[in-house]
């Protein structure tokens, strides 16, 4: 067991269709005029891919590398560094519970525990039906509305345990 090596030499299954469709490629190309290097477009391009697919797949990494003329390993390096990008598939909705100091002082741990129970998953996991992924976030900058959670692009402020059901309902619809 200790001597098992992870095989990184074999490519995992690649999609037969290209991940970046023409529309995305055009949008990424349009961004290139804003920066002096193609490399600088990588962060916005990764945002686009993450927003559309909730994941940065290996195929996406290779396609972005080719499109922006960067070595694929560098795309992997950048994508794996930041919290916004996920190399594994995330659910349709991302629930980020802030666990920084102000939110913890105002009871975020209970919120997190309640969400874990409701959804039946640990932070970092996705529900069976692929609807929700739960993660912990580091300071969302909403300390005056503590405890706060960020679901996709919407910030939910002053969360209380009672509101959780309604919020999840709202997000699902």
């Amino acid at each position: 067991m200790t001597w098992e090596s992870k095989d990184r030499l074999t490519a995992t299954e690649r999609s037969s269709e290209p991940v970046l469709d023409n529309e995305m490629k055009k949008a990424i190309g349009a961004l290139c005029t804003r920066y002096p290097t193609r490399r600088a477009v990588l962060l916005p391009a990764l945002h686009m891919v993450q927003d559309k697919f909730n994941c940065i797949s290996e195929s996406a990494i290779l396609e972005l590398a080719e499109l922006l003329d960067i070595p694929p390993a560098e795309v992997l390096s950048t994508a794996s560094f930041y919290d916004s990008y996920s190399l594994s598939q995330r659910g349709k909705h991302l629930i980020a519970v802030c666990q920084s100091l102000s939110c913890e002082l105002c009871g975020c741990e209970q919120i997190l525990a309640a969400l874990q129970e409701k959804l039946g998953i640990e932070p970092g996991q996705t529900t069976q039906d692929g609807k929700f992924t739960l993660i912990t976030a580091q300071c969302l900058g909403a300390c005056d509305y503590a405890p706060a959670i960020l679901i996709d692009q919407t910030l939910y402020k002053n969360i209380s345990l009672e509101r959780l059901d309604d919020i999840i309902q709202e997000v699902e619809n």
Partner: protein
Amino acid sequence: MAFEPILTRNRNHPEVHQLDAYVKRGGYASLKKAVSMAPEEIVAMVKASGLRGRGGAGFSTGIKWSFMLKASTDPIYMVVNFDESEPGTFKDRYLAEIDPHQILEGIIVGSYTTRASVAYIFIRGEYPAQARILQETIDQAYKAGYLGKNILNSGYNLECVLHRGAGAYICGEETSLLEALEGKRGWPRIKPPFPAVQGAFGKSTIINNVETLCCVPHIINNGPEWFVSIGTVHSPGPKLYGISGQVNKPGIVELPLGIPCRELIEKYAGGVRNGRRCKAVIPGGVSMGVLTEKELDCALDFEGPPQYGCLGLGTGGVIVMDDTTCMVRVLRNIVRFFANESCGQCTPCREGSVWMLKILNRILDGQGTLKDLDLLIELTDTQGALVGKTICGLADGTSWAVKTFINKFRLEFEAQLLKKYMVSKYGPHQKRGNQSLCLSIHGKGNLYI
């Protein structure tokens, strides 16, 4: 003389999100004035005003801009640090929500002064709503001729690009921000060379915080003497204090620099909530350290907190903790933040912060010993850019937080070890609410298990 808010003067006027309404309320007047002045004049004004960076380091903005006067690369870049990730800090978010054109005005004036031809606004990924607001603001400015070619017929050209970050606290460090802007992983660079010489894409770059840039239009409109008249001698000007934690009225309040911490909490934040007593206050974001209840007369300007052993004022994000709060858990929360956000480039921060976290976890699990507290203090000596041991200042934040918490609340940490030992020996005792009981030796010296 009662203090009139300046940076937040438009907070009750949501219509200023539209450019015309903003101009009606005096907006962009400083830009019109600035483009008729020479950059050297503006730098002299900012220097005379004593404006210090509001991003956490408190470096003189005038001196920073004067370095840029010698810059000669083509182009020169202005990069706006909107990567506000320090826990307890939300002032820049607030500024974007109430008065986005003010930010843009500061950016354009700053770019003109430093002869930048492109301004990149690096906004953190966790602010999607604020990013939308800013993009809308930029589009309006382009339409009205405040951005783009020949701004206000002055011959000055400026392009402005909004660049979204992707969730990393380290990107708030200026060289890490430049790396993220260039599309790489956010590993800070070693200085020298400094960004003013070799910054974004290898060119001279000026990097400023949002709040700092917001002060600039007002210095130009009202003159440096007016700015100096607000605040204290070494820390002039207004400051946005963000109060959060266990207070009745968390939020932003704009005050002259130098307000005593106690006054800020009691007068402007409505005091500690639930009628409890204040136990500890973090004066400016978790990197700065902690003040005890006895130290609350500390003036919240750049000179005040260092007199009480803290690193500095930082971002002015004040976090208040009441007497039901366990300091060990608070410290664990802070160290967990730093361990998570450490970029991993240099050895002390990468390994040291996680080691400290593991020790604190173990203490909270009841397996701690007194030696662990000494070890934690010793580890703080191994970290820090101020002593040259790490590349950037994230390690200084970890170091100062751990140092101040353990030194100032030593008895509580020791009692925590004892309590956990007692609990593990004699069984758990009553809990209050969902928070496990805390030994508090402050105040009247109650020691309840």
